[in-house]
């Protein structure tokens, strides 16, 4: 079942990519789907990118051993996704950016853009290698296929579907894969809860084994409050600058699509993740000896449900791995082709026609893929270091820079460069001192990334105050600030279309709020009193 699912998903992905290839007629189509993304496609790609292997494997295992609250309380990535999409993504889209570094080029010039792009590529490659290695270990153990073959085949699928049609294939394939993720969260997870004895099992069953199943620190880990707060802040600050979240706003057809997509994605991810984690915790009552624990969801798919449903569940896990990997590969490839090479050619007075730009972007995808595969196969020591820092680089280097660009008129080029370097540098130093060399601990067990962000902001403020911002940079700030974020949408739609879209979006927002309040409220009413006192 697992082997068949593995091959079916990979073939489906590659075939779909070639089918949508005919829509790619310009570099804009390749990079941002010609800005024609509809609500369902953007919802699909955003949700599938958000739900990575970490959700279905790593954290699912922690929930199984520790009970639901340990991660449901500190899952700051939910609010991080909302801020990343509405605050960062909406601005970048309104400013006409094709990639995230486009905005920095416009706002702060070439040097800032190059440094930011290099950090972006290093971070994405590190994160991409981690995802691919995780996928290799997991799928190898599930299917029995050797690690090296899984890595190579998986990477070929990823490279093919990213290179063939760029954002088009990523959006359409991820939307198709979302169906399997929905099956995992909304059909399989409730079945897992039922197998564990339903609500009675989740409450009395778990509490009878150990009351700490419903504690914030967890039954097994007993994490301190500082860790919970630190994790929440870490994820809440990391996701707003994550390119695979904010970058998904760029292909939106208009502002209304963007707003509806984030509503649906937030609804699916909040309710879906809660259901999934309750299901994983309930599996402790079915079998308390699943090893390794992080394969709890896959164990349930293989042993507790009908093979077809189980196959769909495993497909959901593969979909989560593929979709996150694809958006990460794509971000790194776009950075390499558009933000470094294309810009370099143009700075030398050269020109590139649209056909050459697409060829260049495809070559960049292959280069990124080959680099990631080499790292994933050879597993050099350095990659563990880079991967440990990868995610935090976005929070410490990119987030303060983006906020300074949006909100701080007097931010200087030297200021944001100092912010990026000091933020990333201080984080790496603190990470090594605290987590690797164990020289000291931080107050309240807070994560080093929080201090890295503070250092970055302070560096931007101090260095900017020592110099004077260039007139051209402040002019861009003023011009960009003057662009109404809705202006692009308003100018491309008739009044009748705007009224229709306005009402649909308003209804969507209310429906999502009501569904979340009702479903999560009912769960709270049913569970909280039973685990209190």
């Amino acid at each position, binding site marked *: 079942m697992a082997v068949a699912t593995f091959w079916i998903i990979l073939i489906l992905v590659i075939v779909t990519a070639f089918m949508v290839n005919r829509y790619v007629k310009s570099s804009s189509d390749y990079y941002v789907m010609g800005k024609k993304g509809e609500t369902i496609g953007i919802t699909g790609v955003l949700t599938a990118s958000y739900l990575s292997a970490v959700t279905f494997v790593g954290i699912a295992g922690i929930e199984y051993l520790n009970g639901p609250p340990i991660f449901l309380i500190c899952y700051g990535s939910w609010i991080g996704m909302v801020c990343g999409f509405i605050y960062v993504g909406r601005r970048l889209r309104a400013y006409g950016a094709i990639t995230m570094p486009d905005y920095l080029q416009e706002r702060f010039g070439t040097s800032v853009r190059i440094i930011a792009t290099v950090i972006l590529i290093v971070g994405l490659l590190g994160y991409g290698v981690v995802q691919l290695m995780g996928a290799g270990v997991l799928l190898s153990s599930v299917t029995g296929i050797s690690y090296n073959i899984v890595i190579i085949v998986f990477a070929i699928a990823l490279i093919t579907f990213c290179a063939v049609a760029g954002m088009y294939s990523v959006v359409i394939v991820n939307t198709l894969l979302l169906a399997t993720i929905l099956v995992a969260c909304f059909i399989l997870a409730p079945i897992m809860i039922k197998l564990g004895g339903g609500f009675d099992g989740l409450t009395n069953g778990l509490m009878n084994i150990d009351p700490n199943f419903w504690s914030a620190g967890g039954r097994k880990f007993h994490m301190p409050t500082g860790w919970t707060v630190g994790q929440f802040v870490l994820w809440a600050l990391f996701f707003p600058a994550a390119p695979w979240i904010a970058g998904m706003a760029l292909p939106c057809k208009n502002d209304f699509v963007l707003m509806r997509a984030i509503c649906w994605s937030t609804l699916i991810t909040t309710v879906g993740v809660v259901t999934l984690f309750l299901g994983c915790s309930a599996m402790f009552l079915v079998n308390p000896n699943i090893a390794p624990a992080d394969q709890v969801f896959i164990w349930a798919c293989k042993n507790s449900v009908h093979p077809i449903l189980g196959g769909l569940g495993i497909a959901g896990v593969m979909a989560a791995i593929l979709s996150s990997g694809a958006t990460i590969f794509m971000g790194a490839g776009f950075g390499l082709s558009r933000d470094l090479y294309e810009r370099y050619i143009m700075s030398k007075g050269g020109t590139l026609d649209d056909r050459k730009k697409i060829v260049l972007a495809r070559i960049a995808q292959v280069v990124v893929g080959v680099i990631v595969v080499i790292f994933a196969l050879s597993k050099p020591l350095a990659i563990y270091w880079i991967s440990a820092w990868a995610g935090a680089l976005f929070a410490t280097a990119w987030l303060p820079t983006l906020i300074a660009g949006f909100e701080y008129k007097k931010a200087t080029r030297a200021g944001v460069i100092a912010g990026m370097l000091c933020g990333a540098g201080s984080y790496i130093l603190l990470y090594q001192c605290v987590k690797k060399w164990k020289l000291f601990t931080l107050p309240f067990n807070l994560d080093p990334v929080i201090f890295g962000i503070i250092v970055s902001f302070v560096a931007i403020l101090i260095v900017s105050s020592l110099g004077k911002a260039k007139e051209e940079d402040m002019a861009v700030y003023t011009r960009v600030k003057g662009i109404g974020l809705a202006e692009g949408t308003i100018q491309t739609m008739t009044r009748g279309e705007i009224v229709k879209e306005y009402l649909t979006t308003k209804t969507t*927002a209310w429906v999502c709020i009501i569904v979340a309040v009702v479903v999560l409220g009912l769960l709270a009413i049913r569970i909280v009193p039973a685990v209190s006192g």
Partner: protein
Amino acid sequence: MNMAALLSFLHPMIVMVICGIWVLSILKSDYSELVKGGGGDAQVKGDNN
């Protein structure tokens, strides 16, 4: 009251409410005047035709 259990459900619920209210506030601030027939200087497609 088990606060950990309560927060487990309250946290995602609040995030969805924040997201929805944020979207509704954007609709109100950026589009409601246009929809009501005003819109000041905003130029919709076809206004020049």
